[in-house]
Every structure is written in C-alpha cells, then in structure tokens.
C-alpha cells in the first residue's frame, strides 16, 4: 500500500521535518514493513514536452532509434540553446503531437543519475524522454510515458510544453510503500496508515483527523431497491450484511477528474480513467472501502445480492467470460442478470462509460471468506478483493458513499438523490472481558493497568472499567470497527506490546531442564554422513523431481516398487512430474552436471528422503481444528502420508586414486562402491554380508553386490551401473554407484556394542590356496572356512586371486591367510594344522574347493 506524505499530512500531523524514510521507520516500529520509497529524489528540470517530429534511424546493432525534436517550452529551451530539444529515444510507443515527459540537462534522476547533453548514436542528445521507472513513478519500462494515456485525454489537454512535470506527477512528494499483513486490512487505506503513524508518534491528542468522520444521511423511503438474499451463507456469515446505494444524476461525462486527484491516483500506482471511476478509486484509497459505480441507465430493476446459480455466466470488466460457482456472491439486476461478482470485479454490461450521466454508487460490506473464495476460484486478485478478504471496516460504508457522492457533485456537476438506500444487517460486536494482567503474562513486560487501558483506548477500543463483568483485573473491551482481528487476549497483548514498543521486551534465555540430547538415530545419521565424507566422497543435495522416463532409463522391472512414484499436480516442469523413489534417481543429474562442467573425477553422495507410496495414494482426512482430532482420525492422517525412507546414494566416475609421482592412478570401480557401504557399516559397527546380485537394476548384472545385515535384512546395493543405463542417462562409461537404506543400518546399530575379549598370546598364521569354480563366490568360501576353522580363528584374509593358464579352465585359485590365536596359550604347529585342515574340509564340502 502506497501513501504520499502530502496525503498522510491531511489526516495526521507529520513529525517536524519528517521525510519519507522517517515515516517508513515510524511505521516499521508499529509493525508495518517498509516495501519501498518513491519520489522526492528528482531535481529538475523535468518538463512536459510535445513531440514535433522524429526520424527513424536504423542502427548497426539492429535497433532503430528515433531522432526526435521536442518542444519543451520557453524555459526548457534556455537549456538547449534556444532550440527545440533534440533527443534520441529508443522507444516506439508514441506519435508526433504526443505530450511526453522530458528530462533536461542538469537534472538528477532517482539513484543519483545525472543528466547531461551527451553524444549518442551520432547525435548530441539533450536529455531524454522518460519511462515510468526512470522517474520512480512505477516499474513500467515498456515504453516512454505518454501523458494522454497516463493522465487521460482531458487532463492532458490542459497541459502545455514546458509545464513542470515534477509538480504535475507529484514527484516532489515522497510516497511510502508498506507491506500490509493479512490481519491489518484497514491499512489498505491512507486512513488506516495515518492512524498507525499517529500511534507511532505516541497518539498525541487531536493529532488524527479521520476522513471517514463525515455526516451521513439515514436510510429513506424511495431509495434504489436493494435486496440481500443470501440463501447459502458460508459458515453462517451472510455474504453481504450492509449495502448502501446512492445515486448522483446529471453528471457531465466530459468533465475530467481534478488534477490533484489524478496526481494522487498516479502516485498510488493507479491510472486515472474517468471522473466516476477515479472517484470510487480515490475514496477506496482514502478510507479503504471499495466502491462500485453503476450506470443507472443500464440497470433495469432492483439490485439483488444473491449466490450464483449453477451454470450462470458473467463477462467481467477484464473481458473474460466466467462460469460462476454457486458459492460466488453476485450483484444482480432485478435478481436475474448478474452485474458483478461481489467484492471482486464488476461486469462489462453495467459499467459506467464516457456517456454515463447518472451513477449509482455501491458501498457494501461483503463477507471476507466469500470474497476470498471467489477471488481464488476465478484467479482474480483486485484492489477490492484484497481489501474485502482482509476485512473492510463495516462502519465506514455510508461515509465512503457520502465522500464519493460529494466528489461527484463537486467535480462532475451532478445532483444527489435525496433518497438513500442503506440495508443494514450487521450484528453488534460483543465486548471481550479482558484480564488486564494478561498482556504482562504473555509479553513478559509489567504493564500497569492504566497503560493497558490507555493504549487500547488510543487504538479506538471502548474500554469499560465499571459495571457488570468488571473488577480489579477485568475490563470490558469492544474493539474498533476496523479491527476484526482483535478477538482474544493475545490479540490485545500484541497491541499493547506493539504500541508500548516491542523493543521494551527483555531478553530471557529459556532453560529447558530435561533435554536428552540427540537421539541414537540422529547421531548415527551423522556418523553415516561423516564416514562417507571421510572416505573421500563429497556430499551434494539434489532436487527430488524426476521424469516419467527415468524408471525405464534405470531399467526398473515392471513390478519394481520404485516404479510407484508420487505425482505432483503442479510440477515446476511437466518434464519432471514425479518424486524420486531412490536417491540415485536424482543424483545422476548432479553427476552429469559436474562432468559437464569439465570435471573428470567425481565421487558424490547424498542422504535424503525418497518417496515410496507403494501403490495408489490414499486420501488424508482434513479434520476440524477446534480441538485435537480423535485418535482414529490422527491414525488415518499419519497413515495417509506415504512412506519416506531415508536413503543414501553414491556415484563415482573417473579416477579413485590419482596418477602421480608414485605411479599410475586407479579408476573408480565397483569395489569402491562396496567398500563405501562397508565403511559406513564399520563406522556404525554393524556387520554386513556381501553377495553377488545378478538381477538388480540399475546395476551391471555381473558387477552388483547385494549387501545385507547378518539376519538377511537388505541394506542396499553397490557396484557398476548397467552399460545401458549409463548410455540412456548419458553418464560417463563405467560409472559406479551404490544406494542403501540409512534407516536399516541406523536401526541395526541401536544396541550397544558388546566387547569380545582378545588374546595376548602370539598368533599363528598359515596360508592356503584353494581351487574353486569361477562361479563360486569368495564370500561363500570365506564363510565356509570360518565355520570349519574353529573358535581359535582370528581372521581370514583373501590375499590373492588367480585365474589363468597355470590352473584348470573354469576355475580360479583363492589364496587365504588364516590367523589363529588361542585365548589361553600358544598354539602348537600340530593344532594349527588341524584347524587349517578342518577349515579346508568345510570349504571343500560347501563349495567344492580343492586345496592346491
């Protein structure tokens, strides 16, 4: 919401010497955030100019500039050696004869941009023709300002070249722009902002002049017929509880808006259109009440406010034909023809035009929820809907109509009908019984009773300190009509704190007494992340949005659970409508991006949630919020949320170890991925087993490890990606990958590690070479050796694998070192040999191994 300082000063006293920044700072103190400051930072000369002629000059860079001659009036020409101003202009949205805004040499534009005659495109350009954004009037840079379009033809006709454009456009007057929060609907008016500014100044006696404080006539017989017929109120609230209609007849439609009004509308970021429309906008900006002007001649009967019927249509002012919804509240002509979606936008058929002489001014109070829903449903956010959905002061209705009537009469030459329509169905607001010590309990500042009562009265509340319901600590508070948000003790506490000053709130560090630190899972997850980084991998984060083709690219089987992905109704890109079901699914993008940026060796990982609905998406209930939902509803609520296991994905390509002075490097291969998972498991002290897995996408069927817990629970997979996956995803050849379920590993680590005693007697080592078929897994051989070797076995190390000419085809030789150690003695050679033979026998029985 914008507010020129000159307008603010009409309703309240500005602090002496206050500039825009000071006003903005004052408003910030009472909780209105500054958005921007406009104007006030131009120093002349900025004048009205008339384009006399221009020549098109194509440039080498492909642009065509206009070499213009512009009449900038007598004074302006003193700065241009007495000639008409010659200006280079890049815009094309004007014609010869148009009035434009010219900045002349010597001027300084917003941002300290000093203007001088300068040589450009082969000409000496004496300043420039301005666009809106260049003079801080708006954000438009589509073309230059054409005054007949900005101010309207009538207003433009009164201007002459050389007129001071700073005054004309109100640029000397600073305009403060504030962000209005949803609870402060009343601040969508200069009236509301002025009131807040007055509070920020300490609410000095007599320092606020309410523009809505005007005499209004009571309803009379014979006014325009208005019927409020809401037969399906939302949440029991009537769609319209007040409707004032006033008629002004005999307006001269050729009369322009007064210059001061056009200027103000421009400062507020609105376009002057015609007197009738400008007046409704001006009053809305002044007091916050959206008004609608109907052409009386285009109405046939009474105004009936009702809900829309199914299938009803309305073409709104923006020329969109809209299908109405039965929740939409309509203003209708005689109960039939829709004229407007109440509080949102009018229809084209009843709009005032340039021939309208008799105007019906509608000032109504609409239900915020009704307007919010219509606005959302039709994707129409208008100045009116913004205000109604945040709540318009229901007491300002008649005053707003009166202000509009007065302006139309004064500037349009019309006469107002004596008959007044005012249908008023408002319910009285009840007083709230406030415990005056409550603000202190909520805020933590010891506000005396007088302070609390004083602040509330300044805010416009009626505070009763005696009578029924009041006592030493309780008063009855009726909030002002413009504050529908004041309901409960915390609302009043916030007001007291806000006006007293938030910075008076002390700082007391809270001291919880029984914190139990991080949970096991939270600590264990950090161990996982740190172990992977410690293993030389770099942690990255990727977006979870993936394409529909990805499941095929990853070669996931038709019945794979990872094909059941959650779909977004409104994805950022139609190409990526699904949520990932594995971390690798999105991590591949990150790998590719790194490679595309010229990095050959990449080893990355990510820990994150994946989305596994495991079938059709259920429907989560939406219970009420008045009380805690019952246990069954909560159970349904939690159950409807799809499973989101936490997984880790790892990808690597290029060299795992660099070539260097020590010798050649080593390419990252499947074993680095298995090792990474084992490193994590070891960091959590969780024993895991590795098996060959020939059928798990997206891995290479011959180079994929399935990693499980001792009880067989799947942890994850590691190895080299399938060459077809690599090709489909355009990854570097031989990219390796792992993915595992972090939750599984974390859960497996939850019991305290139980220490085993270890022997201090000397170890005995013996080496064996076993000949096995190439299909026999080394892990199976090791398992068998361990089972046969007995309790004295300390370790089994596979130190060589040989496959080649020296042994039988279809076989390979596995060389193991077995280390034995007894807890209580030094083992003898005979004992060790016996253990070894037993181990070999077990391996032979289990895997067909033959000792070489």
């Amino acid at each position, binding site marked *: 919401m914008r507010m020129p300082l000159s307008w603010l000063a009409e309703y309240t006293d500005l602090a002496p010497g206050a500039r825009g920044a000071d006003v903005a700072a004052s408003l910030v103190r009472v*909780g209105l955030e500054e958005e921007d400051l406009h104007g006030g930072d131009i120093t002349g000369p900025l004048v009205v100019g008339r384009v006399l002629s221009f020549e098109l000059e194509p440039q080498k860079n492909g642009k065509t500039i206009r070499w213009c001659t512009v009449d900038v009036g007598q004074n302006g020409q003193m700065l241009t050696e007495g000639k008409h101003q010659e200006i280079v202009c890049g815009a094309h949205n004007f014609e010869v004869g148009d009035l434009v805004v010219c900045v002349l040499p010597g001027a300084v534009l917003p941002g300290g941009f000093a203007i001088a005659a300068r040589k450009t495109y082969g000409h000496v350009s004496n300043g420039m023709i301005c666009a809106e954004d260049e003079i801080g009037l708006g954000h438009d840079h589509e073309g230059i300002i054409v005054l007949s379009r900005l101010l309207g033809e009538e207003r433009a006709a009164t201007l002459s070249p050389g007129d001071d454009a700073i005054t004309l456009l109100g640029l000397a007057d600073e305009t403060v722009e504030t962000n209005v929060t949803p609870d402060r609907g009343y601040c969508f008016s200069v009236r509301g902002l002025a009131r807040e500014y007055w509070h920020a100044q300490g609410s000095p006696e007599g320092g606020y002049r309410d523009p809505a404080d005007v005499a209004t006539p009571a309803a009379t017989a014979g006014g325009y017929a208005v019927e409020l017929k809401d037969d399906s109120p939302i949440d029991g609230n009537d769609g319209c509880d007040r409707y004032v209609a006033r008629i002004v007849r005999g307006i001269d439609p050729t009369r322009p808006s007064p210059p001061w009004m056009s200027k103000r509308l421009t400062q507020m970021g609105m376009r002057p259109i015609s007197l009738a429309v400008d007046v409704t906008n001006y009053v809305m900006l002044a007091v916050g009440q959206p008004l609608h002007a109907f052409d009386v001649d285009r109405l046939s009967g009474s105004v009936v406010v009702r809900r829309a019927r199914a299938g009803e249509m309305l073409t709104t002012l923006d020329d969109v034909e809209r299908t109405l919804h039965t929740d939409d509240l309509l203003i209708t002509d005689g109960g039939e023809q829709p004229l407007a979606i109440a509080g949102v936008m009018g229809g084209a058929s009843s709009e005032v035009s340039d021939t309208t002489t008799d105007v019906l001014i509608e000032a109504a109070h609409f239900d915020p929820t009704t307007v919010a*829903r219509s606005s959302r449903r039709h994707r129409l956010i208008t100045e009116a809907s913004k205000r109604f959905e*945040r709540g318009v002061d229901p007491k300002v209705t008649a005053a707003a109509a009166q202000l509009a009537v007065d302006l139309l009469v004064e500037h349009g030459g019309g006469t107002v009908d004596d008959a007044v329509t005012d249908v008023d169905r408002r319910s009285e607001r009840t007083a709230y019984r406030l415990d005056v010590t409550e603000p202190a309990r909520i805020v933590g500042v010891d506000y005396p009773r007088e302070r609390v009562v004083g602040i509330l009265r300044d805010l416009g509340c009626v505070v009763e300190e005696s009578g029924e319901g009041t006592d030493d600590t309780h008063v009855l508070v009726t909030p002002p009509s413009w504050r529908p948000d004041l309901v409960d003790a915390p609302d009043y506490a916030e007001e007291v704190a806000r006006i007293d000053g938030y910075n008076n709130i002390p700082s007391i560090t809270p001291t919880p007494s029984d*914190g139990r630190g991080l949970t096991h899972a939270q600590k264990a997850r950090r161990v996982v992340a740190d172990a992977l*980084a410690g293993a030389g991998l770099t942690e990255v984060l990727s977006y979870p949005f993936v394409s529909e083709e990805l499941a095929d690219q990853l070669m996931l089987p038709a019945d794979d659970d990872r094909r059941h992905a959650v779909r977004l109704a409104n994805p950022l890109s139609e190409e990526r409508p699904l949520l990932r079901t594995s971390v690798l699914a999105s991590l591949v993008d990150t790998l590719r991006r790194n490679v595309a940026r010229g990095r050959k060796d990449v080893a990355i990982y990510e820990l994150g949630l994946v989305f596994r609905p495991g079938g059709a998406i259920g429907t989560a209930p939406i219970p009420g919020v008045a009380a805690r939902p019952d246990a069954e509803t909560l159970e349904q609520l939690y159950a409807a949320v799809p499973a989101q296991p936490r997984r880790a994905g790892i990808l690597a390509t290029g060299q795992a170890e660099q070539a260097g002075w020590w010798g050649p490097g080593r390419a990252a291969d499947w074993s680095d991925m298995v090792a990474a998972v084992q490193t994590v498991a070891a960091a959590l002290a969780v024993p895991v087993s590795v098996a060959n897995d020939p059928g798990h996408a997206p891995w290479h069927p011959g180079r994929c490890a399935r990693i499980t817990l001792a009880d067989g629970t799947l942890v994850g997979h590691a190895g080299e990606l399938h060459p077809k996956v690599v090709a489909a995803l355009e990854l570097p050849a031989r990219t390796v990958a792992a993915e595992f379920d972090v939750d599984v590993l974390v859960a497996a680590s939850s019991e305290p590690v139980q220490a085993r005693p270890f022997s201090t007697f000397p170890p005995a080592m013996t080496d064996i070479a076993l000949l096995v078929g190439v299909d026999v897994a080394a892990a199976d051989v090791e398992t068998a050796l361990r089972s046969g070797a007995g309790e004295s076995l300390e370790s089994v190390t596979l130190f060589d694998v040989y496959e080649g000419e020296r042994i039988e085809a279809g076989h390979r030789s596995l060389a193991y070192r077995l280390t034995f150690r007894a807890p209580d003695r030094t083992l003898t050679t005979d004992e060790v040999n016996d253990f070894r033979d037993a181990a070999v026998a077990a391996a032979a029985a289990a895997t067909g191994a033959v000792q070489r």
Partner: protein
Amino acid sequence: MSGPNTNYDPVEVSALDPANLDAAVEDAVAAIAAATSLDDLKAARIAHQGEKSPLALANREIGALPPSAKAEAGKRVGQARGRVGQALTVRQAELEAERDERILVEERVDVTVPALRRPTGARHPIELVAQRLVDAFVGMGWEVAEGPELESEWLNFDALNLGPDHPARQMQDTFFLDPVDSGLVLRTQTSPVQIRTMLEQEPPIYVVAPGKVFRTDDLDATHTPVFHQIECLAIDKGLTMAHLRGALDAFVRIMFGEETRTRVRANYFPFTEPSMETDFLCFACHGEETWGSAEPCRTCGGSGWIELGGSGMVNRKVLRTCGIDPDVYSGFAFGLGIERALQLRHGVQGMHDIVEGDVRFSQQFGMGV
C-alpha cells in the same frame, strides 16, 4: 720376545721403553685422526689396538718382567692403551655422527610434491550449518524433532491456523499431489513438525526442527523450489515473549557471533499471536549505517540490521488443535531459512551454488563449519 727374567729391567726391554710407547701412541692417535671413514677407523683400530699392534706386543712383554717391574710397566702400557682407546672412541663417535648426518642429507626428498593420492571428501554446508544450530540448541537442553517432507495438508496448513480461506495460505506456493484431493502436499514449511510434536508429546516441549521444504518457485538468485528451514518450538508453563527474545538472541549469537543482538517489531503470522519480526545487528559493519554512502555494507545493504525471520507466541487456536490447554501452557516458535544463514555467514552469493551440487562448492567447507 724374551723369556721371564726376574732381574730384568723393564726400561731395557725396548717394547716397554717409555719413548717407544709414546711413539706407538702417537702413531696410533695420528692414524685414528687421519681416518676419514668408519672403514679407515676400523683399519686403524686393527693396526693400533689389534693383537699385532705395538701396544699389544708391549703388553705381552709385561708378563716376562720380574714382579717388581710389572706394576710400573703395566701402568705405563695401560695408560698408553687407554689413550689409544680414548682416541678411537672419540673418533668413532665423530665418524658415526658424520655418517648419520650424511644419511639424513642423502635421504632428503621434496615433501612439497603432492601427497594426497585419494581425494578428500566434504559435507554439504547446508547440513553443516543446520548441525551447528542444532548442536547449540541441544547444548541448551533442546531436542531435535523430525517429520516427513511429503505431508498432510492438515498438518501443513489447517492445524497451523491456516484455514482454506486464509489469505496467508494463498501466499504459499504449494506443490500439491496428484490427485489434488488426496490432502497431501510437499511441506511448505517445517512447522508441521511442530504440530506432530505437540500432538505426540506432553509439555514441556523444547524442540528444534531442521529440514527440507518446498515451494513452487523457479530457481534464481534468491529462490529455489527446495530449501531448508530450521524452526524452534517451546511449550511450557509461564513462557513469555521475553523468553522468545532470549532464544532469538541465543540463536543469532551462535550463528553470527557474540557481538550481535536483536531488534524486534510486530508482524503477522497465522501460527502465532502475538507475532514478532526480528532483525539482528549486522556482524559485518556492527550496525553502522552505510546506506547511501559510496560503499554500503554488502552484508546488510547498509541499514546496519539484517532481517532474521518471523516468530511469535504459539496461537491459542493451534495449542487447542493439538490438545494443549492454552490456559495452562504457553509457548513460542521461530524459524529461519538455512540457505540465508549460509549465505550471510559464509558470503555465498546467490542460490545456484548451494543447490546445483557442484563438488567444488561443498569442498570449500570440509567436514565442519
């Protein structure tokens, strides 16, 4: 060599002649001094201390002397051998020291050649910043709460006093699930974790909830559709806005140093009432206003203060929805974007580096910040 003779005068046995002994010693000392290597010294040792050395021969002559002469001759030879032995020991030590010195020189390498054969890994700084904040709050007795990223609409909006018609709900650009009536969304804030906590735990509650959140913004310098928040929630008896401010002060000190402090003002959030907006003193310029000067502070833009984020006392409606009696308990909540904290604290320009996963970004931060 002569045979034993009790009348024999040692002086007259030439090998035992003092002058000869002196000469032998001098020869030995000279040879020892001349040795320039341990091998030379070994040869000198054999020549002058070995079995065939003059002093060894002289020693053997003593046995043939009459008892009366033995003592004196023995003493003289002993002294001579002692002098040689001493010289050998000294020289041995010198030459060994020289050798050790030389080996160290010869074994010299250039240790500035690359030593890292394997790359070093790194954590993502978003995770590190979140950990830093979490750790500080855990140190003050808070606990960490977590929840799903795909969340029910009721927990993400309704329970937080963001009813379907609330204007603030329209401001949130929410990813809805297909079908839209599933009542599920990608959470737009970490606040549903607070609701889950309040539904499941009895007060007192002091939790900090870090996590990923989602909004339908395209990636640009200041927006990303996936980002991270950290929120703190406290529910206890007697908590006031002063406690909220205390927690906020602790928060900014952890993140931006002991010198900083907060400035607060009113704001509006549906989840809280009263609500509060917090700025903290710029840690770069220490609050010195440089706005409009030639070089405005790049961290705060010149205002001297940096906006932290929204907070407030948990709305009574929200407490009731969670089954907590607002007449017994009160509480506060606050939160901020971790990306923004990372940008401020570490001078990260723009959002792209944080989200694109270029390993060079994470690697700047190592394993902890």
